[in-house]
C-alpha cells in the first residue's frame, strides 16, 4: 500500500484537532498483520507484538474507539476476539449496534446500507459474509453520522476516496489509515521511548516498506516522519486537546 505524504488528509486534521471523536475501526485493526500471502519470506506478526506495539498504544491514545457488532462477530482468531471483548468489558471499546436506531432512522440506515452494498460484494438480502463488516460499519457511520472510518482494507479505502461516496451517504466520512495513526502515536509520544518507538517503526516497515517495490514507492520511516511532520506538525501545535503522552504515565 502507498503512503500519502504529499496531501493533507482532512480526516486526520480533524482527528488532530479533537482526538476524542469516535473512531470506528475495521476488523483488520484487530487482526494481527500478516503479509505472508503476498510477500515471500514474510510471516504474520505474533499477536503479543501486535498488541504491544499497535493495539495497546491505540487504546491508550483514543478514548472513543468503536467497532460494529458484526465486525466483532467476524473476528475469527481467538486472540483478536478476546482482546476486543476485554476492551469492551473494560468500557474502552464502543460497540456500534444497529438496534440503537429507532424505526424512522433505521429506514435511513437500511437505505445507506443498500447504497453502499451496491459497490461491494455484500448483498443485504443474502447477508453474505463478503464485505459485510465494512458495509454495516459504513452504513452505521453514515446514519449517525460519524466523521471517520479507520481501515486497512483497500476496498473500503477506495470507496472512501472515490467520488461515488458523495452519492451513498458518505460524503463527510474520511478514511484514516494505519500509517497516519502510526505517525500520530509517534508524534504524540504515545509509546515507550525505546521499544515502543521502534515497534511503530517496525510496523510501518512491515506494512509499507517491506519489498523492493515498496522501497521505491514509499519513504523510509525517518523520511516518512519528517514528511508527515511537514503536513501535520503545525496542526498538532495548534491543537489544544492532546492525549496524555506515554512519558507522563511513567513520570506521573
Amino acid at each position, binding site marked *: *500500500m502507498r503512503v500519502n505524504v504529499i496531501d493533507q488528509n482532512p480526516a486526520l486534521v480533524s482527528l488532530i484537532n479533537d482526538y476524542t471523536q469516535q473512531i470506528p475501526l475495521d476488523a483488520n485493526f484487530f487482526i494481527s498483520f500478516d*503479509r505472508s*500471502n*503476498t*510477500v*515471500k*519470506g*514474510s*510471516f504474520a*506478526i*505474533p499477536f*503479543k*507484538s501486535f498488541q*504491544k*506495539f499497535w493495539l495497546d498504544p491505540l487504546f491508550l491514545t483514543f478514548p472513543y474507539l468503536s467497532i460494529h457488532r458484526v465486525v466483532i462477530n467476524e473476528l475469527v482468531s481467538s486472540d483478536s476476539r478476546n482482546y476486543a471483548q476485554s476492551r469492551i468489558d473494560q468500557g474502552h471499546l464502543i460497540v456500534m449496534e444497529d438496534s440503537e436506531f429507532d424505526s424512522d432512522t433505521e429506514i435511513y440506515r437500511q437505505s445507506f446500507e443498500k447504497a453502499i452494498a451496491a459497490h461491494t460484494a455484500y448483498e443485504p438480502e443474502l447477508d453474505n459474509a463478503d464485505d459485510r463488516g465494512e458495509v454495516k460499519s459504513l452504513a452505521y457511520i453514515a446514519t449517525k453520522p460519524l466523521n471517520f472510518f479507520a481501515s486497512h482494507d*483497500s*476496498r473500503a479505502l477506495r470507496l472512501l476516496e472515490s467520488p461515488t461516496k458523495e452519492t451513498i451517504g458518505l460524503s463527510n466520512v474520511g478514511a484514516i489509515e494505519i500509517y497516519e495513526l502510526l505517525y500520530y502515536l509517534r508524534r504524540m509520544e504515545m509509546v515507550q521511548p525505546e*521499544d515502543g518507538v*521502534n*515497534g511503530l517503526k*517496525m*510496523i510501518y*516497515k*512491515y506494512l509499507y516498506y*517491506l*519489498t*523492493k*517495490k515498496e*522501497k521505491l514507492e514509499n519513504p523510509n520511516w525517518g523520511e516518512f516522519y519528517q514528511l508527515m511532520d511537514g503536513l501535520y506538525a503545525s496542526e498538532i501545535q495548534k491543537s489544544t486537546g492532546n492525549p496524555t503522552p506515554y512519558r507522563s504515565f511513567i513520570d506521573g
Partner: protein
Amino acid sequence: MLTKEDLYTIEELAKEKRRVLELGMGPLGDNLFKVIRTLGIQLIQIPFLNEGEESDNPLAALYLSSKEEDGYSICYIGLNTTDYWDKQIFALAHELYHHFESSDPFVLCRGLDHSSDIRELKANRFAAEFLLPTEKLVHEVKEKNKGNQDLKGWPTNALLRLIAEIHCDYRLPFKAIVRRLQEVGAISKTVLENLLKIDARDHEGIYYTLGSNINLKAFQQLNTRTNLFGAEGENLGKLIENYEEGKVSLSELSDDLNLFGKSLDDYKLMEEADFDDDLALLFKEEED
C-alpha cells in the same frame, strides 16, 4: 413440445449466430470455448458433485449476467465439470441460448436430458442446432446413404458407426445425435426408442467399442468427466490486469485467485521481502 415455428426460429438463430461469429457450418467441437471467450463470457468450471443418479444431476450449468451502472454487463457461465466432456460442451451451447435470448439475469440449468420447461427445451434444441446444423446433419447422412436422407433398413451396427462418427466430429452427445436423426426424418420413432435404450457410456458395450475404433483419443475424451476447477487462463488474466492497472491490491488479487485454486506464485507475482533492516523486534515477542 416445441412448435414448428419454434424450431424454425431456433434454427435461424443458430445460423445467424454462426454467421456473425464467422464459424461457417463445420464442426465446432472445442472451439466452442473460443466462442465463449469471443463473446466476453466468463467461464467458471466447478466440479459440482452429483450424489444421485445422473438424471438427477442437481446442476449442469448456470448462466448469470450482471448489469453494471454504466450499462456494461458482465456474463458468466458456471459449468459442472463432473459431467462427461460431451455433455459439458452441450451444456455450454445450451447456456449460450440463454445468453442470446434470455432477459433473465440468472438461469440455473439442472439435468438437461429430462427438462420439460419450454425455455429449456428451446435451449437444448439451440445447443443441438448450434453444434450440428441441420443442413450439415442431412449432408452427413446423405453422404453415407447414396444421397438418401432416410436411413430406413440400416442395421443397428451401421447406424451406431454413423452416430459415433458424428459424435467424434461434432462433439454432440450420443442421445442428442439420435434425437436429431429422428427430427430430420432419417430414423423412425421406433428406431429412436431402441437406440436410446443403448448405454452409450458402457465401456464393454457395442457403441463404446465402435466409437473407440473410429477415433480413440476423441471418443475417450468425450466420455471423460474432467472435474476441472477454476476459471480459464484468460479470465484469470483479467484479474491480473486489474491489479496491474492499480484497480485492486495485491492482497485482493491473492484472495480472488485463491477462489479459483490459484496463488500469486502461479503467476510469479509474489513479492519478496527485502530485509535490509532488522524486523526482529516484532517477531521476538513470540518467544517471550
